[in-house]
């Protein structure tokens, strides 16, 4: 006991130096890969930088931002991104919860079940987009085949923005619900059995048990998963990119930024749109954090 406190005291002066040393690789990387690019992004966003046209670079103030706000394509990208967020985040939660409850049953061997939950999570997004694009192919896709077998009219999915967005959301939910299920499953397994036994004694129904015990105890696991899920949904690129609808009707914000910056080499405008996207991410995080803190109080 006394040695420990002595030891600690001896280490105390070096603690701060050591901490700095240990944190320095992380700090350097974050500065180089995040902070510096963000600064550059902000600088570019108030300039006219069009590399493919040989136009001289010049300061334009908030012109790029104003152009974005007046740009129908920008708003369409915002709308599509929001649809994907609003549908796939709760969607992944609900499907993930269902999968977690199913997977939590007492199976003799858990290996295959675990694999079934890990595979969608580990599959590259770009693969998922291609696979689901094939599922929804109007002539040779399995979805239309099933619809045909059931006697309904097959749809030309990628001819309609609404149907394409639906297909994109289904693919996204499939890809993301498994990870949600894994986290919820982890949460489920920490709920002590005694709670259910007590409820059983009180004569509570299964549904009541689920509502009163399972859900409330899962909320902490859910919230963190939801923040990450929402942030990645705002950044949706791979799946909508691999499953294009008519024209650019289903373009997301990330796709719009990529098009402006990489295809058109219009770095000024692309940066301004990127700043908007960044603000959206910050606002989302802020809302969640507020909610979590409010919950704690």
């Amino acid at each position, binding site marked *: 006991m006394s040695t420990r406190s002595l030891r600690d005291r001896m280490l105390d002066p070096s603690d*701060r130096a050591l901490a700095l040393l240990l944190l320095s*690789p992380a700090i350097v990387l974050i500065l180089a890969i995040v902070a510096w690019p963000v600064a*550059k*992004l902000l600088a570019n966003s108030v300039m006219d930088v069009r590399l493919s046209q040989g136009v001289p670079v010049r300061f334009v103030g908030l012109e790029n931002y104003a152009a974005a706000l007046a740009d129908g394509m920008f708003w369409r990208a915002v709308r599509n991104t929001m649809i994907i967020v609003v549908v796939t985040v709760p969607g992944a939660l609900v499907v993930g919860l269902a999968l977690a409850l199913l997977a939590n049953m007492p199976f003799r061997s858990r290996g295959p079940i675990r694999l079934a939950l890990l595979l969608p999570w580990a599959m590259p997004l770009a693969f998922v987009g291609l*696979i689901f694009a094939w599922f929804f192919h109007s002539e040779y896709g399995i979805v239309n085949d099933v619809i045909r077998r059931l006697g309904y009219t097959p749809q030309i999915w990628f001819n309609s923005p609404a149907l394409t967005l639906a297909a994109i959301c289904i693919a996204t939910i499939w890809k993301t619900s498994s990870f949600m299920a894994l986290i919820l499953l982890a949460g489920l397994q920490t709920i002590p059995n005694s709670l259910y036994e007590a409820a059983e004694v009180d004569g509570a129904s299964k549904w009541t048990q689920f509502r009163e015990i399972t859900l409330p105890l899962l909320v902490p*696991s859910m919230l963190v998963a939801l923040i990450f899920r929402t942030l990645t949904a705002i950044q949706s*690129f791979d799946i909508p990119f691999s499953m294009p609808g008519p024209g650019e009707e289903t373009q997301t914000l990330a796709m719009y930024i990529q098009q402006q910056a990489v295809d058109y080499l219009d770095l000024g405008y692309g940066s301004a749109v990127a700043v908007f996207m960044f603000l959206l991410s910050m606002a989302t995080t802020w809302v969640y954090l507020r909610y979590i803190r409010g919950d704690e109080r």
Partner: protein
Amino acid sequence: MTAPQSSQALRWFAAAIVLANGFFPALWILATSFKNEVELTAKPITWWPENPVLTNYIAAFKDQPLPVYLMNSAIVALLSMALSLFVATLAAYAIARLRLKHRQLILTTIIAVSMFPLVTLMVPLFEIMRGLDLLNSYWALVFPYTVLNLPVCTLVLVSFFQEIPRDLENAAMIDGCTRLGALWRVVVPLAAPGVFTAGTLAFVNAWDEFLLSLSMNSAVAYRTLPVGIQMYQGEYAFPWPTISAALVIGLVPVVIVILLFQERVVSGLTAGGLKG
């Protein structure tokens, strides 16, 4: 939650749903990869190839340098995994163990990294990599992926480090270990499940990344698999059977990784890794 009274039938039903959901898309692509062009466009579609052919696999290797893509993906994912683990271990240890004034602020800053969408950083990152002459190299991807994985790795490791009793570490230091020696010899081994969880998360995230890879490394020699898969598309054609075969080959490493580490990942999550 256990459900002892749930019947055998219900359990089978539950298992069937979970398994079908998880495996069907991969199995379907596997079936497609063995179909020839005629069977592929047959209506109604066949659920399993009637005349399985290997031509699509041959084409997948012939049309694009698939082994190069696989190798690049593996190198980038492994390098960035190792670097993420190294950087995150040091940071997590400082946060979990050392007396820090702004512990919470530092953790929040690291987590805040995931708020910055990669696509928004892409153009400046491109300019920076160009400045450092790192375009078309593994490092152009390894560094960004490391930072991308920093939040989740740090979170997981902090929560694992916090569970390890300080006494063990102190005992090691009394035995003559330095603080860092104790970190490597005592803390990290004890937090092995957490390290595996973080490592697998980092590996899979890096293996999956598409957008940055598409932009930074355009040369074939450094192209990663998710981008390489897109290259099968020709000017006019979209060869589904060949792409299916390439997808199947691309999935093999993913399946191996999760087969090897599934228990670790799941137990890591169970131990509260992601609850921050």
